[in-house]
């Protein structure tokens, strides 16, 4: 009787075992893949290996240099040796003898500026390259001057020029040294001593376009009526610069007038200078009062602000004093990465003149200060006239010379390349670390585009094609930034873990507990018969 029950039991339990095995099989073979497939975070494929490869590639600009004239062999060899030490720039020096027309031109030229104009027209120095002309006629050079930098891409040197001096000049002309250091790697910035680090931080970060805003502050419009034609001033002084920089960066100029608000400063009357002195340490506090009205309200481009302040009547005339107690020459100060502020003093109204007192502003002084500040905010290479070096003064002081434009483009491309590298690398690391980030096809497309343009840009920089490099790099930079900051990646980022458990546990636990327990029964069936058989027998 018990045997029958046992047999029935065994048969029943065998069926039960098959059922349990079937449930387990469905759960593992069908359920798990379906669950995995439906709950993975969507991730477009990113070119991780390409990014790693491109990060390892060297970052340098190829700059061609032509040495024209009868020179000694040692000059070019020494020059090459000196210039090889420059980081980030590889010089390709070529030598040639001067042509008949060039020699004739030197003989017939009246002055060096005349020679410069004529030679540039016939020599056609390509964009992104420099030329050094050895001039044997000594009457072009003054007594202790051995190098004269021309207005275009030519530099004139005496035959017996000091190679060290020449290589220093060329290194300063090719790229702004601080921008170069910054672009080579941010680690180097920390190594700079205090003053240089501050100087290196002066320049604005490189972006494809900037908003230049001129703000005129009139705190007492009832006393003075200011007449300043901003439109004419911008068209006359800033428009040529904007047009010249079009190929390198886009500048959009606007102007506004802020009434009834002043800079909250408390200057002291200085009796020896007969004016109000604003000490240097109060300068950082001045901008807070007007911060809300500055900056663009719809665009995300970085802004460069230039503020022109007309002091209040009771604080007139107002001059900025440097730390040694002397008034600064230009009554203005530069704010690193932000812009500049200048204080424009107006003549006081005479005793019983009627209000408001009508004043015209000195447009030339204002705009030349703005341009000076703008030149210092952008990484433009500059030269100072020192012992043995003379720079030909340019006809139009607001425009840049061609070698400066090339230097600016080089600095920007270097900065772009390092920035794109950092952005894409951070994106890959982030995506690898956080498994919850969604990468949509749009973002993936941008990353692929950015990587492609980045490699093109690096290639163009290594071959010296500056224009193309700028174009590729600005496009790549825009795409990399758009991909990195896209809000769709954060969609599932903060999905709380306890919500995951709250969904999975009531769903899977009641199903899996009986299945696992019945598996135990299955196992038990395959273990038990052996001692049973022995017993029966």
């Amino acid at each position, binding site marked *: 009787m018990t045997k029958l029950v046992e047999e029935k039991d065994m048969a029943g339990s065998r069926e039960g075992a098959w059922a349990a095995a079937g449930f387990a099989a469905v759960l593992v073979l069908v359920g798990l893949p379906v669950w995995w497939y439906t709950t993975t975070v969507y991730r477009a494929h990113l070119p991780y290996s390409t990014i790693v490869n491109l990060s390892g590639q060297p970052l340098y600009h190829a700059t061609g240099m032509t040495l024209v004239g009868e020179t000694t062999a040692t000059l070019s060899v020494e020059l090459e040796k000196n210039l090889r030490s420059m980081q980030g720039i590889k010089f390709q020096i070529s030598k040639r003898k001067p042509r008949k027309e060039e020699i004739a031109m030197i003989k017939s030229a009246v002055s060096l500026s005349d020679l410069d104009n004529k030679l540039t027209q016939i020599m056609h120095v390509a964009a992104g390259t420099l030329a050094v002309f050895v001039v044997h006629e000594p009457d072009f050079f003054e007594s202790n001057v051995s190098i004269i930098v021309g207005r275009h891409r030519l530099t004139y040197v005496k035959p017996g020029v000091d190679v060290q001096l020449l290589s220093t000049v060329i290194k300063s002309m090719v790229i702004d040294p601080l921008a170069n250091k910054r672009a080579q790697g941010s680690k180097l910035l920390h190594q700079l001593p205090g003053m240089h680090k501050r100087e290196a931080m002066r320049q604005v970060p490189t972006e494809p376009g900037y908003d230049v805003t001129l703000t005129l502050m009139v705190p007492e419009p*009832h006393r003075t009526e200011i*007449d300043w034609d901003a439109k004419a001033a911008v068209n006359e002084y800033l428009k040529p610069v904007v047009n010249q920089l079009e190929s390198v960066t886009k500048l959009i100029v*606007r102007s506004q007038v802020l*009434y*009834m608000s002043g800079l909250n400063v408390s200057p002291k009357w200085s009796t020896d200078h007969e004016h109000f002195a604003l000490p240097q340490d109060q300068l950082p506090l001045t901008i807070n009062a007007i911060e809300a*009205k500055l900056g663009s*309200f*719809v*665009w995300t481009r970085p802004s460069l602000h230039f503020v022109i302040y007309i002091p209040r009547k009771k604080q007139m005339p107002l001059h900025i004093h440097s730390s040694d107690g002397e008034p600064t020459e230009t009554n203005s100060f530069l704010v690193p990465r932000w812009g500049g502020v200048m204080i424009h003093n107006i003549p006081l109204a005479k005793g019983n003149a009627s209000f408001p007192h*009508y004043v015209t502003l000195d447009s030339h002084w204002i705009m030349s200060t703005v341009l000076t500040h703008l030149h210092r905010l952008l990484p433009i290479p500059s030269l100072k006239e020192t012992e043995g070096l003379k720079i030909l003064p340019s006809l139009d002081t607001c425009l840049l010379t061609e070698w400066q434009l090339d230097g600016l483009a080089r600095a920007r491309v270097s900065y772009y390349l390092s920035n794109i590298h950092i952005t894409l690398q951070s994106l890959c690391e982030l995506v690898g670390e956080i498994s919850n980030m969604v990468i949509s096809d749009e973002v993936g497309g941008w990353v692929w585009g950015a990587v492609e343009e980045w490699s093109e840009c690096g290639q163009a920089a290594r071959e010296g094609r500056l224009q193309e490099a700028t174009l590729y790099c600005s496009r790549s930079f825009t795409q990399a930034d758009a991909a990195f900051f896209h809000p769709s990646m954060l969609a599932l980022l903060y999905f709380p873990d306890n919500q995951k458990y709250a969904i999975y546990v009531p769903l899977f636990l009641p199903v899996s507990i009986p299945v696992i327990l019945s598996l135990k029964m299955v196992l038990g069936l395959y273990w038990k018969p052996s001692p049973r058989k022995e017993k029966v027998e």
Partner: protein
Amino acid sequence: MGEFAGVLLVFLSCLVVTGRCRDDTFTEELLIRPLTSGHIYSHFEFTTTWTTPEITRSIDQYRDFEFSHYDLFPRAFGEIVERYHVRELHLSLTQGLWRHRKWGYPIVDAPPGAQLWVWFNPTSENLDQTWRDLVNALSGLVCASLNFIDSTNTVSPELSYRPQGLAEEWYAGNSSYMRYAALPRENVCTENLTPWKKLLPCDTQSGLSMLLHPVPLYTAHYHALSLHLRPSCKDVSCSSVHLELTQALSLVQGPTLSSSGHQDWSLQQLFSTQLIYTCPLASMSKIYVDVTGNRDMKKFTLDPEPDIFDESGSGPSLRQLAVYDVQAALAGDGFNIEATYKSRHIYGIIPSPHLHVSRFITGYGQEGGSITVKFTNSGSTSLSVVYLEVLPWYLRLFLHTSHSYSHTKSPVYISKLVTARDREQGWLYEAVVEIPASSTIELSLDFTRALLKWLEYPPDANHGFYIPAATISAVLPTPR
């Protein structure tokens, strides 16, 4: 020769009088109207106009504005207008309900909450995306949550909200250039007033904006803040055009009854501050007191004496204003206007305005109900009005039951109807209703409520659901 001399004379006089010819002007005005219900209605209007050859060209050719050099016109607002292809913009933020029956018609009418309607320039860009971007930019400008405006509460009505500025026939008749949205639940508080005040050239330091102290403004019965931008004519002959930005603030403050029951009021009492400084940038700064019905100062006297009296209209639309020139009056001391009433205020029967409307919900419970509108025409001529109703998608309307009761069966002509799609589009119901003289018409729309997902309920369920206000557009026979 004669014209040349004339032009030269105008040019010289311009220079002599103002010092230089400005492209833009700024004026400020304040109207104070004591209402028959005992309340005081104050309406501030700050107008900035701007005209340059580029602006004129943009207005004439329906192109985007290109502003580069700002002076009195606020740059924060100008950049938004420039970027999002805006030609006309009207934004209002209101707290409280305007009672047309008791208070008459306001100068600028606004429903409670936020309301935004914009006419765009004809452009090839997708206007829905532009509308979304504009709404987000504006919500940053005025610190209001306008970003809740999306496709479910945006409509383009056919006959209502026609351009208030210059517009030709082909443009004004094409509603695809226009978007309208209302957020009835939006609260208005000081954080909306502050950025609005910052758009004024004189800020809050001087001029009539000195009177805008938050405490009395936000304890009023009705408070409306608005921004209106439109291209308009410079003068009556419309020989030249300009861009006009009007910032208006309407206020209805509670009965200012003194202990003896007299409706005495003064600027100091209404706004808790005094006018001390005049705005040097304003070309005109005036205060008007409505003295219609106060002939010869019989009902109340004003101190100081007004500079001039201005009269306009005749018959039922007669208006008399006492005008104060603030720039002339301010001489260092504060400026205050006081009105002293001769007798106690009588809460009598207030004559109803020509057209007034009452709208309410009938029915009970959460399942459904009906929206009923009662139009009352108390004039002697019949009126045709355009009735616009914008409803959220979760009220499922039954249009076959919309009907009107009246003595003479007047048909309702539906000019535009957009049926709702769940979670995508709201209802737009626009009808032309003819109201006979001296009668009341009732229109009702039945609805049932749809079931909402748990995330779609508004916060604070006890408030209930806010339905946007309906809009009535009418041309009244008498100007009031």
